[in-house]
C-alpha cells in the first residue's frame, strides 16, 4: 500500500468523508461508479413496472400516490447520476453503458407487475429490501453518495409504508383481493431475498468494498434482517410466506429460511428474466425516440449562448 493509499484508508477508518476533489484509489473510484450507476439505473428502470399500473390504479388517491412515488424514483435517479458525475463519468456515458448491456440494474425490475397487489408488494418488499441495503449506506465513505442516500432513504421509507398500506387493504379486502395479495407475496418473496445478492462469504471484492466503507454489511446479514422484519408483517396481514422451512430460531434470535433459487437469479442476470428484454427495449426506445428532443434543447441553448455572447 502506498503512502497515499494508507492516508486514504486512515481517513476512511476515522469516519471522514471522501469528497470528489480528494485523492482516491482508482479501484475505489471504479467500484463506486459501478455501484452508484447501477443504483441510478435501477431507479430509472424501476419506473417501468410501477408505470404499468399508473393508468389502471383503482382509485384517484392511489393513482396520485403512485405517481408521486414514480416521480420520487426518477428524482432518486437524478441524485445518483449527479453523485456518479462527481467521479468523472457523465450521465449519458452511464446510460450508454446500460443500453449496451455493460452495466446492470437491479434484477428485481425484470419481474412483471401482474395485479394491483404487486404494486403493494413492490412497495412493501422491494422498497423494504432496498431500504435495508440503503440505510447503512447513509454512512458510506464517499460524501456525495452518502448525502444522496440520506435523501433517498427518507422517501423510500415513505414508499414502503404506502406499499404496506396497499397490502393491508388487499389482504383485508374481498376474496379476490386477498388472493391477489397472497399471489403477489408468492411471486415477490424470493426475488426480494435475491435483491441482497448471493452469500458474499467468499467474495474478495465485497471484502475490499467493506474496508472502503462502500459496503457496510454483508449480503447475508442484510437478508436475515429483512426476513426478520418482514415475516411478522406478513403474519399481521394474514398472508403466508411461501417457504415451508421458515421457522423461528430462538437461539440466533431470527428466522431460519430457505435460500432462494440462485439458478433463477443467475438466469435473470444473464437476461432470461420474465421482462429483461422488454425493460431494456423500453428504455432504449425512450432514449432513441428522445434524441431529437435532446438535440433540439442543445441547439437552442447554443443559439441562445451565441446570441448572448454576440450582444456583449
Amino acid at each position, binding site marked *: 500500500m502506498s503512502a497515499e493509499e494508507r492516508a486514504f484508508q486512515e481517513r476512511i477508518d476515522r469516519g471522514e468523508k471522501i469528497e470528489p476533489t480528494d485523492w482516491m484509489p482508482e479501484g475505489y473510484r471504479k467500484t463506486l461508479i459501478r455501484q452508484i450507476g447501477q443504483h441510478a439505473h435501477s431507479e430509472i428502470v424501476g419506473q417501468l413496472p410501477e408505470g404499468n399500473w399508473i*393508468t*389502471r390504479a383503482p382509485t384517484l388517491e392511489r393513482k396520485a400516490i403512485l*405517481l408521486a412515488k414514480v416521480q420520487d424514483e*426518477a428524482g432518486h435517479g437524478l441524485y445518483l447520476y449527479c453523485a456518479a458525475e462527481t467521479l468523472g463519468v457523465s450521465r449519458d456515458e452511464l446510460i450508454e453503458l446500460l443500453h449496451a448491456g455493460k452495466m446492470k440494474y437491479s434484477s428485481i425490475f425484470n419481474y412483471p407487475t401482474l395485479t394491483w397487489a404487486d404494486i403493494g408488494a413492490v412497495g412493501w418488499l422491494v422498497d423494504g429490501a432496498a431500504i435495508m441495503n440503503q440505510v447503512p449506506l447513509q454512512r458510506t465513505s464517499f460524501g456525495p453518495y452518502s448525502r444522496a442516500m440520506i435523501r433517498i432513504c427518507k422517501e423510500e421509507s415513505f414508499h414502503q409504508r404506502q406499499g404496506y398500506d396497499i397490502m393491508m387493504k388487499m389482504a383485508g379486502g374481498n376474496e*379476490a383481493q386477498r388472493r391477489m395479495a397472497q399471489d403477489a407475496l408468492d411471486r415477490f418473496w424470493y426475488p426480494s431475498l435475491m435483491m441482497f445478492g448471493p452469500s458474499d462469504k467468499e467474495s474478495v471484492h465485497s471484502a475490499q468494498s467493506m474496508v472502503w466503507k462502500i459496503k457496510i454489511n454483508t449480503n447475508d446479514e442484510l437478508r436475515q434482517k429483512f426476513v426478520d422484519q418482514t415475516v411478522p408483517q406478513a403474519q399481521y396481514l394474514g398472508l403466508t410466506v411461501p417457504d415451508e422451512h421458515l421457522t423461528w430460531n430462538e437461539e440466533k434470535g431470527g428466522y431460519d429460511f430457505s435460500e432462494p433459487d440462485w439458478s433463477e437469479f443467475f438466469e435473470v442476470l444473464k437476461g432470461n428474466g420474465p421482462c429483461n428484454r422488454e425493460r431494456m427495449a423500453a428504455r432504449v426506445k425512450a432514449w432513441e425516440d428522445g434524441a431529437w428532443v435532446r*438535440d433540439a434543447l442543445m441547439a437552442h441553448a447554443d443559439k441562445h449562448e451565441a446570441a448572448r455572447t454576440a450582444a456583449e
Partner: protein
Amino acid sequence: MTDTGDNIANDIFFDWLLRRGDTALVLGHRVSEWCGHSPVLEEDIALANIALDLIGQARLWLSLAGEVEGKGRGENELAYLRDAWDFRNLLLAEQPNGDFGQTMMRQFLIDAYQAQLLKALAKSADERVAEIAVKAGKEVDYHLDRSADLVIRLGDGTAESRQRMQMAVEILWPYSGEMFIGDAVDQAAAAAKVAPSPEDLRPDWVSTVDAVFTAATLSKPETDFAHTGGLTGRHSEHLGHILADMQFLQRAYPGATW
C-alpha cells in the same frame, strides 16, 4: 361571496364541474402514460409532477361535482363508473401523446387556456370553485411556464425539431377552438357569476400563443376550424380505450375497497 345554489341549477352546475374535472383527469391520464419513457430524466420527473397535479385537480373538481349532484357519487364513482359519453373533457385532452413535441404542444395549448380560466375562477361567486381555482391556478401557472418554455426551445431548436413542432401545431390546432365556444351550460355559469364566458378567455389566450409561437418560430394555422363535442360527451375514438384501461379494476371488482 355566496353559495350559488340559487343562481344555477344543480344539474347544469354539475355538468360545468365535470368539464373541469374530466379535462384534468383525462389530460393527467395521458401525461402519466409517459412515466419512464420520456426523452430525458428531468422530463420523467416533470411529467410525473404535471400528471400528479392534474389528478389532484380532477379529484377536487369531481368531489365538488359529486357534492353538487347530491346523489352520493364521489370522485371515484365519477372517474371510474361513467362510460365515455358521460365524460365532459375537452377533445384536446384525450388526443394521443404522439411524440414528445405533440405532448408538449397539447400541454401548452391547454395550460394557456387553463391559466386564464383559473385566474377568472379565483373570483367565482361560488367560494368552493374559487378555492379550487386558487390552488389549481398556482400549479397551472407553473405548468404553463414550463410548457411554453419547451415549445419555444423545441420550436427554435434544430430543423427537425421545428418541423416536428409545426406538425404538432397542425395536428392539435383544430382541437383548440373547443375551449372558447360557449353553450347553455357556460351561459348559465356566467349568468350566476360562477365562471367567465369562454369567449372572453380567447383574446388573452391568443396573445400568449402568438408570443410563444413567435419565439418558437412556429406559424399559427390559417384555419379557425374547431372540432367540438368533448364538452357535451361526443368524443373521439380514443376516450373509450383510455377508460377501458383506467376503469378496469373498478369494473372487474365492483364494490371493493382499495
